[in-house]
């Protein structure tokens, strides 16, 4: 599987530059700054990106995704597939073979029991494991021998790479976490802060939401790695300060996820102390259309449910017109610069799953106006369109965030040009992305006509992501307003196709189905109006080598290979 991944030329030149010293710890100390500070070192209890990334220095999965999105073995000897016999013909089990000779940083051997234990730990009903979705459909995990483990699924699973694959599902040590199963997981502070791992570094001191001190794991499987003897992982502050510390003052070597205006990053990079790198994954900023009526006049419990279709947005012509009025190039230029590109797809990558849908890229205000006329919306008082005495007026909500508010203002302007009145709202992210069923302001409750946010999927297969848009996944009072299908999109043909995707193992065929599903949600129905394919921008100092920005796994996936470039 080849993937488009845009890395700056700089990274390429570094790869050719001086080769690293061939001794563990020879390159001294390295400083990382994450402006969101990690609060725990156990990704199973947090699920947050910052925790997954920090933990990935210490604990490792059996296999990872590389910067191109391809699966590569880490603790396993190879990635099991149907062709090499690792995945059973009936797609109901996957057998992992572990590399021999791997030891934990405390010197005890790493065995299949640890793998089995990790599954038990996460699948415990009272554990509150954040990565439970990775273990969906797992019936049992069997230890065949010390170095072989088999995961059995209750149903044929064409993509059996949920458990133990990628930074979200690393292996924890059975001996250390033995007393931390279930409800006890919450109380194991020591294990959660200083997990014993197989990775290149080990935790010396963990200060929650502040700083992590790490040093090279003396028992790491490659005797020459990691090149750095110690590592400081500082957290806190804001993205500007993190960017400044790497690009302008040179105090730090690596800064994660610089969500800053493009000109700010360019100004910082001009100081010449470091480089801003970018890479694209699957994160898409989109406008979601509400297919149900969120009117406050409806009784609570019926408001924004399938009982009442949306009076305006149920007409596909209106939805399409709203999409046509948007100039995505300008949005990218203003909001994201090198870290964004316009898209019409919900699934923008990997290539095999990305539809060739580009018809939304060109702004067409006249076409949008014509479409609204055709739908019966005529220009009324104040330039706002009306139909049967009803104004074409929409509420548009999103989370509080400078770029999103810029987007709202621009889109409101474009929509007013085609005669659509827009009322803007922004809601604090901690409320908007929360799922308190009592709050009227959460994104799944969707008490608004349209809303904007970004979402992506883990790993490189979009099956569960696309499966979120089936009829039954719609948030509604009966589900406590939980569910991924926040548009309340409902199409039996779509549900049928999702089922088919779940039965198909052949990659080509899966790609076709996924593209079709993507198109059904985007260009065929305009239920979801994608705006920007958002990349990741991180910065590294000029003296840090070996960095390969990875959006498919954690950014620190190859920290063992990082080295100091000698001037």
């Amino acid at each position, binding site marked *: 599987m080849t993937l488009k991944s845009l890395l700056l030329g700089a990274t390429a030149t570094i790869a050719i530059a001086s080769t690293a010293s061939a001794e563990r710890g020879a390159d001294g100390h390295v400083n990382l*700054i994450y402006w969101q500070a990690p*609060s*725990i070192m156990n990704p199973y*209890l947090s*699920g*947050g990106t910052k925790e997954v990334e920090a933990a990935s220095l210490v604990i490792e999965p059996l296999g990872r995704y590389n910067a191109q999105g391809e699966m590569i073995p880490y603790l396993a000897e190879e990635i099991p597939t149907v062709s090499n016999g690792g995945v059973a013909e009936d797609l109901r089990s996957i057998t992992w073979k572990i590399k021999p000779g791997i030891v934990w940083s405390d010197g005890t051997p790493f065995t299949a029991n640890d793998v089995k234990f990790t599954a038990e730990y996460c699948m415990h*009903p*009272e*554990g*509150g*494991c*954040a*990565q*439970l*979705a990775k273990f969906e459909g797992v019936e049992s995990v069997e230890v065949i021998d010390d170095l072989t483990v088999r995961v059995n699924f209750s149903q044929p699973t064409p993509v059996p790479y949920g458990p133990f694959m990628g930074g979200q599902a690393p292996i924890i040590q059975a001996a250390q976490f033995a007393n931390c199963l279930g409800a006890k*997981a*919450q*109380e194991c*502070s020591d294990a*959660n*802060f200083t997990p014993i791992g197989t990775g290149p570094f080990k935790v010396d001191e963990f*200060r*929650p*939401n*502040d*700083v992590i001190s790490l040093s090279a794991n003396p028992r790491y499987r490659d005797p020459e790695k990691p090149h750095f003897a110690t590592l*400081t992982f*500082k*957290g*806190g*502050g*804001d993205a500007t*300060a993190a960017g*400044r*510390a790497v690009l*302008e*003052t040179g*105090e*730090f070597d690596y800064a994660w996820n610089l969500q800053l205006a493009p000109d700010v990053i360019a100004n910082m990079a001009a100081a010449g102390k470091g480089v801003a790198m970018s890479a694209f994954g699957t994160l898409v900023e989109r406008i979601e259309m509400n297919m149900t009526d969120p009117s406050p006049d409806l009784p609570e419990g019926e408001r924004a449910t399938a009982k009442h279709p949306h009076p305006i947005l149920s007409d596909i012509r209106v939805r399409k017109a709203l999409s046509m009025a948007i100039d995505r190039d300008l949005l990218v230029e203003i909001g994201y610069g090198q870290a964004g590109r316009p898209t019409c797809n919900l699934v923008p990558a990997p290539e095999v799953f990305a539809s060739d849908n580009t018809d939304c890229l060109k702004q067409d205000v006249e076409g949008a106006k014509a479409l609204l006329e055709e739908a019966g919306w005529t220009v009324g008082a104040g330039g706002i369109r009306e139909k049967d005495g009803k104004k074409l007026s929409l509420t548009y909500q999103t989370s509080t965030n400078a770029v999103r508010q810029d987007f709202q203002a621009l889109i409101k302007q474009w929509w007013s040009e085609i005669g659509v009145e827009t009322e803007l709202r922004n809601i*604090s992210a*901690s*409320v908007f*992305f*929360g*799922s*308190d069923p009592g*709050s009227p302001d*959460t994104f*799944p409750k969707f008490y608004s006509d349209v809303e904007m*946010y970004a979402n*992506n*999927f*883990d790993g490189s297969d979009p099956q*569960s*992501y696309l499966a*979120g848009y089936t009829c039954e996944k719609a*948030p509604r009072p009966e589900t406590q307003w*939980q*569910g*991924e299908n926040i548009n309340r999109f409902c199409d039996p043909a779509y549900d049928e196709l999702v089922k088919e995707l779940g039965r198909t193992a052949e990659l080509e065929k899966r790609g076709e189905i996924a593209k079709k599903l993507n198109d059904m949600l985007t260009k065929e129905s305009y239920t979801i109006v994608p705006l920007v394919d958002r990349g990741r921008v991180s910065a590294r100092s000029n003296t840090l080598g070996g960095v390969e920005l990875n959006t498919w796994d954690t950014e620190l996936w190859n920290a063992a290979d990082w080295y100091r470039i000698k001037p």
Partner: protein
Amino acid sequence: MLTYTIRRLVLAIPTLLFISLVIFLLLELAPGDPMAQVPLTVPPDVKEKMRLALGLGEPTHIRFVKWMWQFFVVEPMNFIDWAFGTAFSEGQQRVLSWQFRSPVMDVIAQRMPQTLWVVAMSYVVGILIALPIGIYSAYRQYSVFDQTGTFVTMVGYSVPPFFSGVLVIVIFSVQLGWLPSIYDTTLKVVDWQSFKLQLMQMVMPVMVLALQTTAQISRFMRASMLDNLNQDYVRTARAKGLSEWTVVMVHVLRNSMIPVVTVIALGVPNIFGGAIITEQIFKVNGLGQLLITAIEANDLPMVQTVTFIIAVLIVFFNIVADVLYGVLDPRIRYD
């Protein structure tokens, strides 16, 4: 005086209990979800399980009583265990943070050194600068020094730390490259070299914070000195032939300090949680940063505990200020 102090302390108990209830209810009613920061790739039903694992499934009053028990009984017992090596609190559930799954008090203790080094030090530095400025400004009212002092304190009052902090970083870290812009909380002072590093990383945050303290306290000091300088007893002292130094520094200053001391005492609780912005700018990661990140993450046990501790300090230092007032000024008697 003693009975007054005891009465105030006893009265503080119901006040604090009421405050803790109000904080709890406010947090309870506030919108927000501790799972809001978990990425959208984690499905809603998994988030629901995580919420239950945090104990959010229990009714509000049960959780409040649990917090009270943990905070007022288990945590003190745990402190005694730590101090005397006993084992009273063994097996008892402590107040756990939702972000860290670790005892809230441990993290607070961990944040103390940098909070005291930076925020408390800035308070001391601010006071040390403010007092002489205030005294001399009042003594030479409307002189060039007074005018300059007034100007500087006005600037100190009106320039917010998110501006002055970034400004000094741009000057001293980016342009000149003299001082670090990021505070290293792991630095241990063991010798002159590390002491120098500690000093260098403290200079900017301490001075930015001290500017604000200086502005406030020096204005109080000046006003209070001016009140006293025109009093009859000052004229009497001068008429007795005392030196200007004795008149100002002994007679006037002692009387002027009475209101200033109470202002200083009332400002002490601000050290613990009052420097949120400056801490964020310099990445000091003290109690202020702990509180703000806990609020962002909806880590209710942490927010509840930190705000309650601040409430305790405010109530306590109010009592201290009132008592000090009586101690310093024999004319004031509460009994």
